[in-house]
């Protein structure tokens, strides 16, 4: 059995089991009530997509910079990176969003909740990315840096041309996993009243009193974002792969 056939078989079996489970739920289904709000789902999904893409790009950039801080010889830079990572990883995203929006953003006069939400989400994910990148950078043998110095590359060239390309390949699976988490974590942005996918589904639920019918599209909508990401990651991994 080929791999893709196996994937399809298992996916179908899981879907059937889920449908079977729904069948067992007592009461009537209200798909038509939820269907009326399809536009709401769609717009929420688009907002989530936009937020996620922006936060995703930003978090990779933050992760790289903070990873460099963590590995810096300057103790002040190292400490800054370390404290950033520990603070962010040690507190719930929910708290960061509330503090970020109601305290920090209002203090600096930033009022656009989409911007604040994206920034907080990127900062949150960036801390995890930083640790992933740092691990990848440290895993590159010292001999590669030696060789880069021997041919006369500057430190920056050595990082850009030799170390980073090798590290990226190493950390790709972990980064993809983190990006999938980021997309799902974006659902928390509803607490600062950003009208993203999850908030819209919750509203539909409160209008229609049809919980399962409101949340099932939510699961499917998130999978539509995360599955292509996983597929892309696997494809990139293959494209970059080589024995070391």
């Amino acid at each position, binding site marked *: 059995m080929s791999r893709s056939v196996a994937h399809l078989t298992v996916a179908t079996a899981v879907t059937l089991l889920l449908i079977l489970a729904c069948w067992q739920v007592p009461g009537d289904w209200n798909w038509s009530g939820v269907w009326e709000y399809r536009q709401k789902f769609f717009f929420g999904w688009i907002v989530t997509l936009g937020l996620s893409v922006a936060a995703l790009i930003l978090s990779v950039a933050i992760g790289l910079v903070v990873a460099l801080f963590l590995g810096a010889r300057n103790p002040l830079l190292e400490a800054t990176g370390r404290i950033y990572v520990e603070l962010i990883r040690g507190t719930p995203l929910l708290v960061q969003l509330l503090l970020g929006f109601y305290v920090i953003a209002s203090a600096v006069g930033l009022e656009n909740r989409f911007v604040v939400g994206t920034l907080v989400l990127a900062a949150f994910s960036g801390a995890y990315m930083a640790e992933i990148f740092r691990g990848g950078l440290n895993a590159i043998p010292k001999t*590669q840096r030696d*060789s*880069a110095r*021997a041919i*006369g*590359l500057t430190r920056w060239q050595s990082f850009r041309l030799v170390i980073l390309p*090798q590290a990226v*390949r190493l950390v790709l699976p972990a980064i993809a996993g983190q990006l999938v988490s980021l997309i799902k974590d974006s659902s928390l942005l509803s607490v600062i009243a950003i009208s993203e996918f999850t908030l819209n589904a919750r509203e539909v639920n409160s209008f229609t009193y049809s919980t399962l019918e409101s949340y099932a599209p939510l699961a499917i909508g998130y999978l539509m974002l995360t599955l292509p990401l996983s597929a892309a990651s696997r494809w990139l991994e293959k494209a970059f792969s080589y024995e*070391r």
Partner: protein
Amino acid sequence: MARKSIQLREITSTPSDTMQLIIKELTQAFGSTRVLDKLSVETGTVNSLVLVGPSGGGKSTLLRILAGLDTPISGTVTFDETTLGRDEASLRLYRRTIGTVFQSYNLFSHLSARENLILPLVHVHGLSRDESLARVEEPLKRFHLHEHADKRPAELSGGQNQRIAILRAMVVRPKRLFLDEPTSALDPEMTAEVLDMIEVLKDSGTDFVLVTHAMNFARRVADEIAFIGDGKVLSHGPAESVFENTDNTRVASFFKQVLR
């Protein structure tokens, strides 16, 4: 033979060049371990200098300093009346004028052999990509590496990797080459192909400083040999005089062991 030298001119330094090396009171330590201990030596005007001696004696440490990769605690290194600087910026400029080959090849593992060769040309020496590709073509053919040029290091044998590494050091047309035990990680068959290549380079006028345990080869290619042990030069001179040195018991017993 004539054809060979024409092709080699593509990659080698000007034949008639020579080098003279003066080292004064060179000291290097890692932690509390003193690896080089006020090492001094003055060579004649030579094309090749070979460093031999027991493992842990300081040969590779010395070579890294000569190649501008490490800075000694104290002492000076002077090549042809130019003394090596101590700051990274001047050492980087120096490293751009020489070539260095490591024991474990250290090719960039994410790049093909050809990309490894052109990387320094494009990013350090300012050649265009096309110029660089043109420059490495002939040497790749000359050393029978052409059919492997698009493979990554992991797909090549140790001997092929090391020959590519030597080419990477050569295509920038360095003043001289530093080779740190280039065959120590290779099996005998591959050792031969790498040593042959070094000999071809020597015959075409490349100056080099070589650290090696291949004693017969050292004897063949060395204009001068320096025996390094306990962080000092224990014996130095033309190859034969060092191999037959019986004044220093440390040197004599080493050769008795390795040449047995």
